[in-house]
Structure formats: C-alpha cells, structure tokens
C-alpha cells in the first residue's frame, strides 16, 4: 500500500501528515479525536539520525499533547548496518527510542503500530514492537532478517532456507506467522478507518503477546515458562 492512499483510508475525515524523506509525521482525525501519527516508509533503514528524530517526535507528543493516542506506521527493513552507525552507538539511539515509547505508554498514550510494508529487526524492536498493540495490513512482510541476509550470516544456502521456511512458522518471514505467534494482534481489512476506530477503543495495558501466542497455538512455551519463572500463579492453575 503506498502512503497517500493508506492515509486517506485511515483518515477519511482528513489528516495533516507530512512526509519528510522517509519519515511520516503529523496528525490524523478520527471520530474519537486527534491522533498523533509517526511513521516510516519505503522500507527505510533506521540509522542514528532517524532514530533520534523519531524519539524527538515521541517526546514532543508527550510534552505538548498529553494522552493523545499515537499511531506508528511501520515500513522499515531494519536498522542501518554501517560501521559509522556502530561507532556512534546505534543500539543506544534505538534503546532511547524504545524508552521514549515506553514513557508515552506509561503517561497514558495508547500506542498502536500498523505495519504497512516491511517490519524487521532493530527498527521494529525499537518502534513498532513497543506499541500496546501491533496490527498489519494485508501484504505486510514481517521478518527477523530477510532470507538473503540470513543466508549470508548463517552461511546456509538461500535455497535451503527457502525450503525450511515453507514448513516452519517460526522461521519463515510472513504476516500469518506473526499473527499465530501472538505478535500481530490482527490484520486490518477495509475499511481501515473502522479497524482503527475499534483499535482505539482499547486501553493501554501490559504486554499480552506471549498469552496471545499461546491462545493461537503458535508459541506455546513462552507464556507458561515466563509464568512459572515469575512465581505468579493466577486463578485456575
């Protein structure tokens, strides 16, 4: 989905989202009120500058619009892989970005993520995956690392990885697998504005992804193991 039609479908009542390079920033109008929009497009890789720019925007929303819900639009292949980004400490910039999103959630901003293109590795961890709920549009591509890169890193031939990923929800990139594993709450169907409105009705809360993965049968160990280690026994156990 390209960006303009996506924004029109999300905000039939109008929006003031502007594009700065591969960054989307602004507000959208919904029946429930104004929404802060912060997004990435064209699969941009997030390096130190973009990570800091995203963090600045999250902090600005927290400062100037207390409680305003935030929608992050995700289309990023991951973190920028370069020597310079590592010399400057990209992991720290991304940790700061993740902390800023956490602050927003704790200050009562509902944070939603909508994957409208690619979502992968470092940038997904620091932005999209920090949301209260992650949603996606049909055709979104979620992965840890694309298969050609994974092949180079693991030295496993690409053809072998392609064969393996056809049979394994854990290994294969793809939206359906991330739904089954509990990471993506739902896949939004048109009209997207209605799906957004429904998602906005929820309240910020604790991380439910492991429980969701268990309910959906895609990730059956994470929640029981975490619960057992935590020592917190809930009703019915």
């Amino acid at each position, binding site marked *: 989905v390209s960006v303009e039609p996506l924004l029109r479908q999300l905000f039939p009542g109008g929006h003031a989202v502007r594009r700065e390079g591969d960054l989307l920033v602004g507000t959208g109008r919904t029946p429930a009120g104004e929404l802060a929009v912060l997004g990435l497009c064209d699969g941009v890789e997030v390096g*130190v500058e973009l990570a*800091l720019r995203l*963090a600045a925007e999250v*902090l600005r929303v*927290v*400062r100037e619009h207390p409680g305003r819900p935030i929608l992050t639009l995700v289309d990023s292949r991951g973190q920028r*892989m*370069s*020597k*310079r*980004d*590592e*010399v*400057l*400490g*990209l*992991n*720290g*910039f*991304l*940790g*700061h970005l*993740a*902390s800023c999103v*956490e*602050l927003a959630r*704790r*200050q009562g901003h509902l944070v939603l993520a909508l994957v409208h293109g690619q979502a992968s*590795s470092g940038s997904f961890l620091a932005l999209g995956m920090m949301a209260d709920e992650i949603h996606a549009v049909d055709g979104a591509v*979620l992965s*840890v*690392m694309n298969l050609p*890169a*994974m092949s*180079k*890193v*693991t030295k496993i031939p690409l053809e072998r990885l392609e064969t393996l990923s056809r049979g394994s929800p*854990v290994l*294969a*990139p793809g939206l359906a*697998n*991330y739904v089954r*594993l*509990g*990471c993506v709450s739902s896949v939004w169907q048109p009209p997207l504005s209605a799906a957004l409105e429904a998602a906005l009705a929820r309240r910020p809360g*604790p*991380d439910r992804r*492991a429980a969701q993965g268990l309910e959906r049968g895609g*990730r059956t*160990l*994470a*929640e029981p*193991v*975490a*619960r*057992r*280690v*935590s*020592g*917190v026994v809930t009703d019915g156990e």
Partner: protein
Amino acid sequence: VAFDDGVVIGTGLLDGRPVLGASQEGRFLGGAVGEVHGAKLTGLLRRALEERPAAVLLLLDTGGVRLQEANAGIIAVSEVMRAVLAVRAAGIPVLALVGGAWGCFGGMGIVARCCDTVVMSEEARMGISGPDVIEATRGVEELDASDRAMVWRTWGGKHRVLLGEADQLVEDSLTAFREAARQAMGRTRPLTLVALEAEQAWLARRLGDLGGCADGLEAWRAAGVDRPERLPLLEPADWNAAVAGARRARP
C-alpha cells in the same frame, strides 16, 4: 538442545541484599535468544515486579536473536525489552553486565541500553549489527571483520564507556564486576519526560560533534582525548585518567 536453553536464572544476595539475576551462556548457540531463553528472562523480570529485589542483574553474552527460531526469537527479545522497562519504571534498578566473549549484539544490544546501568570489561563488545553481519551484508569494503583492532575501537568496552553508552569499565574479573554491580545497585535512571529529554540532548550532542567520525580513533580525537592512539594499550585505571575530560556520561 540444552535443558537450560542457554541461560541460567536465580536469586542471590549482593552486599547482603536480595537480587535476581540471569546469566547467558555464550558457548550455547552464541547465547542467542530463542523462545524459552527469552521467556526465562521475561519471567524473571515479572518476578522482580512482585518481589521488589534491590536490583536485577543481567549478565549478557549474546549474539542476539537465535536465527534458528527467528520469529519467535525476535518477539522474545521484544518481550524482554518491555519487561526490563517495566521493572525500571517500578523503580527497581536493572543492570547489564557485559563481560563475555560474545559481547552483546543484535536486539540484546538495545535491551542492554534499556537498562539503568551498563558495565563492561575492556574485552567485551556491545552494539547492534556485529562485524561479521556488516561484512556479510555490506561487503569487506564497508568493514573488514578480521581487523581486530578496529573491531575493538568500534564495539569494545573502552569506546562504549567513552561515549557514555556504558557507565563503567572494569577489569575482566568476577570480583570487579561484583564490585561495580554493588556500586550501581543504588542508582536508577527514572523514565520521566525530563530524564528522557536530557538523554535526547545528550545523544544530539554526540551526533553534532562526533557524527562525522567513522572510526573510534577519530571519535576519541574529536571528543578531545590527547594522543588517542595510546588508549587501546592502557589499563582501566590509566585509561580512566586519560579520558577523564573527554568522557560523556549518560545523564
């Protein structure tokens, strides 16, 4: 497969005070995080919210997401990240101690920087994309992963502490890490707007004056270190003295 999935967790006393701790085993699949490994860390952090220990100590030695469990691995890392921030928000200090042969890479490099304090040995390394990954994806023209001196100038403990990405450089010994953990146990970095705005300004300053540096040595010079080429050779005590004016402590 190992029964502990590459990480041990438990409780203990540090300075007579109760702490929770986890230690990754770098020799098991590179300390990489899979579903169960991650769930043990997340469960430990949930326990901290109930028990309110004096601190949570994460001894990290990891290449990041376990690619064999790719999707479940990255989700697990994200759950650990969220759980670390929840414990911090509850005012319980979370310490990352990085002293293993693998270092701390991939998504776990982000997790380390979501902790209150990061302690590193000189030999340890921390970042997101490691040297092998960059060379494999971008080519040897971008980076030669066999250049060990360059690898340590980029990801090593000294560079990280000079930037302020890590708070303290210690000798490569359990005693030194224990002492550093004992000192850091009482320190929290609150997750407030004021605190994160200060961190924003601190990172912006780094981009402003070190942003043109593509090598650790250039960055040390730009940060104002006198004769930066001698830094890799100095022992921690001498190194601390040599960089005293140039270090950028995280706010």
